[in-house]
């Protein structure tokens, strides 16, 4: 169970990282996710059915996601449509596009060679999945880590943090926001392409709930790994994706039917949003109590010392 969540979690990690880029770096809740995830899946599966290799399919899936991000980015920055609505518009449009690409609502792979089959055949599927997931995750995290070390990455972080300050320092903030949307949705679509290969099919409904999954992974990851170092934060997203899968697997093990997984996802998200807030409140309260207690002790001491001085004086 642990092993299978690990493998699945790693395949979902690019989704978590993609959501992290818009939600945390740019401070935008981007609903394009729900369209770009199946977009990546649809593109990958149909390319493979047309005879392209699984690697090409995954790469083109990534690029397709970038294209979806470009559209939302332009709607947001150039047409000044509020980001939430911009995401909804792209997501809705992508539904039709995905239907056109797939031709029907569910397209199975036949005997096409999927990415795991590039690995030694002697390994069992779960190990193959983990290794594949690790390879992809290491590539994605390394690329992003290096990108965030460049001036481009710094400009991206600055734009998400303080737009006025960024443009006053020469940064083309619209360009940065579009770029952020693009790579974010690229990774989300890549995740879709990987999951489709792992499941053996692309489905028009597979995007439903992905934004909740992504956000929950981001928040779970941040509960486990804190820090403002960008590498720590990226790794936290991978951890978040894995732990989230594990939670779902445990829930299924407890007998939840698959149809209830969506509401479960939503509940998990609510919990992980609330946990840090409650944690914080408890911690602050405890520290305040400790601080006040210390103050009181000091007050007591000063009162007793005052009293003793008085005593001394009165004796004089």
């Amino acid at each position, binding site marked *: 169970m642990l092993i299978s969540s690990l493998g699945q979690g790693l395949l979902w990690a690019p989704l978590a990282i993609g959501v992290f880029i818009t939600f945390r770096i740019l401070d935008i809740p981007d609903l394009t996710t729900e369209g770009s995830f199946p977009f990546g899946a649809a593109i990958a599966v149909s390319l493979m059915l047309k005879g392209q290799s699984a690697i090409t399919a995954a790469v083109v899936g990534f690029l397709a996601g970038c294209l979806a991000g470009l559209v939302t980015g332009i709607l947001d920055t150039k047409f000044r449509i509020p980001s939430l609505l911009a995401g909804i518009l792209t997501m809705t449009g992508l539904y039709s596009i995905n239907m056109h690409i797939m031709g029907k609502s569910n397209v199975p792979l036949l005997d096409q060679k999927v990415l795991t089959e590039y690995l030694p055949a002697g390994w069992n599927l779960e190990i193959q999945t983990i290794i594949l997931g690790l390879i992809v995750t290491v590539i994605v995290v390394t690329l992003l880590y290096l*990108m965030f*070390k*460049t*001036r*481009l*990455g*710094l*400009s991206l*972080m*600055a734009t998400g*943090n*303080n737009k*006025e*300050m*960024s*443009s*006053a*320092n*020469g*940064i*083309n*903030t619209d*360009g*940065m926001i579009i770029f952020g949307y693009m790579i974010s949705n690229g990774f989300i679509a890549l995740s879709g392409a990987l999951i489709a290969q792992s499941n053996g099919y692309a489905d028009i409904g597979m995007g439903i709930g992905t934004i909740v999954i992504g956000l929950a992974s981001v928040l779970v990851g941040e509960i486990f790994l804190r820090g*403002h170092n960008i590498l720590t934060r990226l790794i936290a997203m991978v951890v978040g994706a894995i732990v989230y899968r594990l939670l779902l697997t445990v829930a299924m093990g407890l007998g939840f039917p698959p149809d209830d997984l969506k509401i479960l996802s939503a509940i998990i998200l609510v919990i992980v949003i609330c946990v840090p807030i409650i944690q914080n409140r408890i911690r602050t309260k405890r520290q305040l109590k400790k601080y006040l207690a210390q103050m009181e002790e000091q007050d007591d001491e000063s009162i007793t010392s005052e009293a003793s001085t008085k005593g001394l004086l009165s004796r004089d």
Partner: protein
Amino acid sequence: MMKVLQVKHLQKVFFPGTDNERHILKNINLQVEEGDFISVIGNNGAGKSTLLNTIAGTLQADAGEIDLVDHDVSKKSVAYRSRFMSRVFQDPKMGTAGDLTVMQNLILAQDHQHTVNLKWYQKKNDIPQYQELLKTLNMGLENFLDTQVKYLSGGQRQALSLLMATLSKPKLLLLDEHTAALDPKTSHEVMKITDDMVQKKHLTTMMITHKMSDALKYGNRLVMVQDGQIKLDVRGVQKNNLDKEQLLAAFE
């Protein structure tokens, strides 16, 4: 003398054609020469910030022209204009990126032109140089290079904003009540640092202030904006001969 900035027949009208129509800048003409340090004063709502915002490009001019270093920038973006100018805002939070470190903020401020490239932004060898810069502020910031700016006090943040604004060697420095949010002592210190930097680096500066004493004490030129127009523009000896009473009288 080279003209750093020429504002010609500048107009700004908010909400035109509605009941709320407000003509805020009324045919403003202003020439700023290289080396000028201008104190800008005027009532609340006179249009001082609007003037600076239009120069910086956060607001678009409705009519007229803004020439920066001899070319028209009135249709250019904020980012483009920032190649020639820097700003410090009234709110210390506005001028810095709070989630980024002091060092990252300084790096961002240093180059307003090459903001998108794949070169490493942080180089170990540069650390001493940044520490030296921070030392000039006398606020102990040299020990906080890797601290996120949101943990600094308002005064430290504003001093950092000011340092950042000078790093790109701007042709024009715009200060909008940049000491207004600080306590009297810090405000005085930041004003002192401002003057030092302006003198040392020969920065052409426009500084909005409500402190008459600062307006009189600092700078070689004083401009008063009233009701969207420039009501007073004095420089040199004429400015030095002004006193508080005369200024207050001019407000009437």
